[in-house]
């Protein structure tokens, strides 16, 4: 798992590029939590980047560090030509209007005491765009776009809505300032499958309609595959594998990606439950393993894995892996009709 590799970066045309991002938190008694240890990726305009991994792999921390919530310990986040980490407080505030976030638990991320119209309009009122009919129109437009009837919902409060509807309100709130990028941090993990499908479809529609670029953070590979143009698999603060979704699923090269895929419950009784199971627990990010961080749970582990950290390298066109002993990947297949 190398975070140091940058071969997968696509140069200057990217809308957002994150380089060597490091995020560390003090854990008391001079211990340090290495939440994210030098990862790099970039996102083209109009693309959906999926960040996937287990709890504790640093995917949410990465999403938040992009927003400078808080600023990363080291590394750079360039958004539309601007270095986010060097912005003054005021410039950062202005830049953040164009980068919004949606969180996992839609109910707790809405203020229970405020009306829906005020929640959605808050961004506008902060930026003094709330004068007159245009603001009301804008709020109504985004509410309508996310499938809520403005006349019915405007004066209600969050507790009167289901989880799925609250997530729609959160999406409306994120859309109201016309952002370029929305970072979705596990937006459907707390929802039922039926509602999850509604929200995933809605995000796709909003992306089309408003020309958004999305960062989609989730632990469920099936969900990530459905929405992403490019997927970054993370483990314990490092990048394991980067590829287009269809390539990644057809030919997972990293042993960790393999295990993640085998863990997805198949809604098909004829599909035998795979005996592949990830063994052991996630090592502590305070004292991560040397070399490849996945080695303590990897089936293919060799001596080299503890001695040397694998760097990201290209093993097939637009398919990058950080592993000394990756699975064989057919090089000629050229992405399998990949959309990215």
């Amino acid at each position, binding site marked *: 798992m190398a975070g140091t590799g940058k071969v997968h970066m696509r140069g200057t045309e990217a809308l957002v590029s994150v380089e060597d991002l490091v995020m560390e938190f003090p854990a008391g008694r001079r211990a340090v939590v290495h939440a994210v240890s030098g990862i790099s990726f970039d996102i083209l305009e109009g693309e959906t980047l999926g960040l996937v991994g287990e*709890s504790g792999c640093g995917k949410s921390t990465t999403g938040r560090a992009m927003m400078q919530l808080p600023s990363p310990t080291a590394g750079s986040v360039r958004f539309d030509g601007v270095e986010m980490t060097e912005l003054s407080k005021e410039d950062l505030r202005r830049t953040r209007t164009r980068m919004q976030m949606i969180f996992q638990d839609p109910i707790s991320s809405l203020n229970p005491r405020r009306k829906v119209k005020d929640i959605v309009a808050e961004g506008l009122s902060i930026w003094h765009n709330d004068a007159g009919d245009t603001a009301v129109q804008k709020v109504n437009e985004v509410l309508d776009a996310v499938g809520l009837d403005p006349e019915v919902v405007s004066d209600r409060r969050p507790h009167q809505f289901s989880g799925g509807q609250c997530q729609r309100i959160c999406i409306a709130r994120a859309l109201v300032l016309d952002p370029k990028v929305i970072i979705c941090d596990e937006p459907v993990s707390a929802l039922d499958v039926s509602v999850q499908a509604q929200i995933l*479809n809605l995000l796709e529609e909003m992306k089309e309609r408003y020309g958004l670029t999305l960062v989609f953070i989730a632990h469920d590979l099936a969900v990530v595959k459905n929405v992403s143009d490019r997927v970054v698999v993370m483990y314990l603060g490092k990048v394991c594998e980067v590829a287009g979704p269809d390539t990644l699923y057809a030919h997972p090269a990293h042993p960790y990606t393999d295990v*993640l895929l085998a863990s997805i*419950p198949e*809604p098909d009784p004829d599909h*035998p439950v795979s005996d592949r199971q990830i063994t052991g*627990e996630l090592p502590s990010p305070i004292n991560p393993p040397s070399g490849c961080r996945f080695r303590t749970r990897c089936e293919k582990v060799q001596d080299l894995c503890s001695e040397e950290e694998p760097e990201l390298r290209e093993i097939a066109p637009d398919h990058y892996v950080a592993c000394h002993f990756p699975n064989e990947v057919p090089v000629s297949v050229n992405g399998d009709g990949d959309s990215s």
Partner: protein
Amino acid sequence: MAAERPLLEVENLRTYFDTPRGILKAVDGVSFTLDKGETIGIVGESGSGKSVLVRSIMNILTSNAIIPDGSEVFFDGKDTRNLSRSEAKHFWGTQMAMIFQDPMTSLNPVKKVGIQITESIRYHLGASKQEAMERALELMVQVGIPEPRKRLKEYPHQLSGGMRQRVTIAIALACNPKLLIADEPTTALDVTVQKQILDLLASLQEELGMAMILITHDLGVVAGRARRIGVMYAGKMVETADTTTLFHHMNHPYTEALFKSIPRVEHQSHTRLDAISGRPPDMVLDLVGCRFAPRCRYAQEQCITDEPDLFDTGQTGHRQACFYPVGSPENAEALAANQATGITAAGLDLTAAAVS
């Protein structure tokens, strides 16, 4: 009692709640049976009544719950609803045990794990402190917790989510229950940990010969794990069948819709998902007709006025409650008729159905 009698028989179970808004019919006439050592999966959306169903079986409802006459729950030939409080206390744990969705809230944060596991062993089996600790250690090994001796002395917050769920499983198994009820045991967990926990439950069940009720909203979770599946919608069982029969011959439009809304890895990325439009009905209202009709693509006049009962489809053990079952000629006609007008009899706009 005859030896063939199922372990659990639920007959026309209804559970209502007296709420300020009126009587909420959370479970409205559910019947099923469960044999010894068998696993049944109960699937449905939030609010479909799955959790209230098992809480009614377990008899752990809140005080505003009303169970009307005619509802029967027989466990091992005994009516569980007539148990006194003190009888019930010995019934829970030794006969039936339950694990819940969120392992953080179902464990006591200020008590060490060891104390929480031994509590029921000492209470039910009258074991000494040391015997109980030994049994707890055995259980910790059985549920696959590394360094069990050290973990026994730790608090829940020192464990990961998956480990906490293993602890709740150890507590549930402490007194060898005959029936384990798992209420969304993996919903709060990562996919990798989910698989570990489901594998663990399956192997423990085989080892101990327990029956299990596995509740989930994800058809994927029960597909490889349960022998039979019951699909619940708005307080009713709408389809029950053997797992293979259910997946191969889905009859109820709700089962079909639930199945289609799952994102599949085999599909190309950016495949549009078939979401179920709308949301479940308000269960305080008097519901007429089929409860799924407002969200159903196939709904006809009859669905709005008459309520379909569960009936046998002809295949063994396969029962469903729909007038226009999926795969039948009536169903195809109903869909064609609805598509021709663009709107179902219940007013669902088929052209916009996919949007919300």
